[in-house]
């Protein structure tokens, strides 16, 4: 265990001194920020609400799931806020009635949205299946956001494998692998130690991306499980290319070939009618995309997610069986 950690730590230290790896680590976050800027200008993805102290804190929490909420201590200050140039609604409650304050420059659809949110909050107490309706209206998920974030996450699952690849190729170039091979660490410990980064990096990436894109309360644990499964492919390919290559740039461009099946299966999933989806069943990336989609839409169930994961693991297992000999040979 200690030795595994030693290998991983060395790779982390070394990676943080490699400008290419730093770039790989930062890049997905930049993409997510760009995506976020695009989506917030495309549709009414967020609602800004200013509330006074007549709105209780559970209501505020509820609203925060869907928009930005600012709290003020008096209705005058709320009014003043609403009068500012940006799109902000005021919300206050007198007795049992809510009133929405608007300036006139707000989008009409946003008003409907806020009305809907308020009423669905109140209806919550009646035990109505509000959650489902909320997704159906799709207000906080423009297609770009729904698919874009998902695509990005599946896409970046490759980056962990790429970091493994770079570290491995370096280890071959410098022939430090020989030194490791004459120490008492076992091959399995070494491989696990090297492989860990391939899972850690995409988990950090995906959580960061989801947070930046602000999908609200989705099940992060499910996301992590899916990421762990889909990252296996990239780790495997990272190892395979890493042990057979002595040139970093060449190795990376071979690894980039993975983007073809990824983009192929995801765009297939988005644009093909569902009767054609069976054409994509061979692709683990399809299953990952599929699972993430339901997670993002908050429709996912554990049994559904685990089914998709099993399929991914099965496909990965077959690939592993085909490649493991080659990898083992390369590590000598």
């Amino acid at each position, binding site marked *: 265990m200690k030795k595994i950690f*030693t290998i991983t730590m*060395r790779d982390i230290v*070394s990676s943080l001194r490699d400008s290419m790896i730093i770039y790989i680590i930062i890049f997905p976050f930049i993409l997510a920020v760009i995506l976020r800027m695009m989506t917030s200008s495309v549709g009414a993805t967020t609602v800004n609400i200013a509330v006074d102290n007549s709105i209780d804190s559970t209501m505020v929490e509820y609203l925060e799931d869907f928009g930005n909420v600012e709290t003020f201590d008096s209705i005058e200050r709320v009014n003043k806020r609403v009068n500012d140039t940006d799109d902000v609604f005021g919300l206050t409650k007198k007795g049992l009635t809510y009133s929405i304050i608007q300036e006139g420059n707000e989008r009409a659809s946003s008003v409907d949205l806020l009305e809907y949110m308020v009423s669905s909050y109140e209806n919550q107490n009646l035990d109505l299946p509000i959650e489902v309706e909320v997704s159906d209206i799709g207000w906080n998920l423009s297609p770009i956001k729904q698919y874009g974030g998902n695509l990005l996450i599946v896409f970046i699952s490759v980056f962990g494998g790429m970091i493994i690849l770079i570290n491995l190729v370096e280890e071959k170039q410098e*022939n430090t692998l020989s*030194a490791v091979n*004459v120490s*008492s660490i076992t091959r399995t410990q070494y491989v696990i130690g090297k492989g860990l980064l391939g899972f850690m990096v995409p988990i950090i990436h995906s959580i960061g991306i989801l947070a930046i894109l602000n999908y609200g309360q989705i099940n992060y644990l499910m996301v992590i499980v899916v990421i762990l499964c889909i990252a296996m492919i990239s780790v495997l390919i990272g190892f395979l290319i890493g042990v057979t290559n002595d040139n970093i740039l060449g190795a990376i461009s071979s690894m980039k070939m993975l983007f073809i099946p990824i983009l192929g299966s995801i765009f297939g999933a988005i644009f093909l009618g569902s009767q054609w989806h069976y054409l994509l069943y061979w692709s683990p990336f399809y299953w990952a995309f599929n699972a993430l989609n339901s997670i993002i839409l908050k429709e996912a169930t554990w049994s559904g997610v685990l089914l998709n994961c099993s399929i991914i693991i099965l496909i990965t297992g077959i690939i592993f069986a085909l490649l493991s000999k080659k990898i083992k040979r390369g590590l000598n």
Partner: protein
Amino acid sequence: MIKVENLFYSYTKDSKYAVDDVNFEVAKGEAFGFLGPSGAGKSTTQGILTGLLPMQDGLAEVAGYNMKNPSRKMFNKLGVSFEQSNVYGKLTALENLEFYRKLFDVETIEPNVLLEIVGLSHVANKKASTFSKGMKHRLTFARSMLNKPELWFLDEPTTGLDPAIANQIKDVIKEKSKEGSTIFLTTHNMFIADELCDRVGFIIDGVLKLIDSPRNLKLKYGQKLVDIEYKDGNEIKKDSFSLIKEEERLKLNHIINNYEIELMHTKEATLEEIFIKVTGRGLV
């Protein structure tokens, strides 16, 4: 400590052997020198004995483990210094050693102590990629000592080092040898082999030609020579005579009796000369 019987190795897996039917044994505590010209098969032999190259044919036993399927535990007892230095360029000298020591299950030497020994203390916190060739080589050498190896494989530990540092390294090896480590030393440097090794083996084209102690080899193959410089009129003449051959001894006598001697000294045959004599080839 090492036992090798009928060892063969071919990189091309045919009858072009880089190691050709090699047999030898190294006793515990012994310092064994492996000498031969470039391409003789020295590194290949070390590669097989350290498990970096697979066993093809023959028998090799290292530190009590059969090299057909050695256990990882064996490496706790082994130290390996490589012909071509191999350290992590992005890590500092100290980080390189700190990383490597954690890969062993046995007690290890404090990295700073080792850096001091090989004269790298002043660059302990510099990245190895900024090091000169010789510095990297010393770091590789230092790394091989981390786990206080019982059996120490040294592939050209002094090659490419300046003479003063090479001498220091030689002293370190000598020290460890005295402390009881078994040493398998590959080198081109005959003086170091002569000084350090209890026995040496001469290998050429994969074939081990001869094994003996440096002293025996000198007695057997070396002839005592006398180099002499004398004045013949105004001319200074140089000559060299064997003390073994009667005819040459008489000539030498004649010179001593009739000329003014400028310089005269006896010379022992070096291992290198013996090597050339035995194998008919130089050591380069």
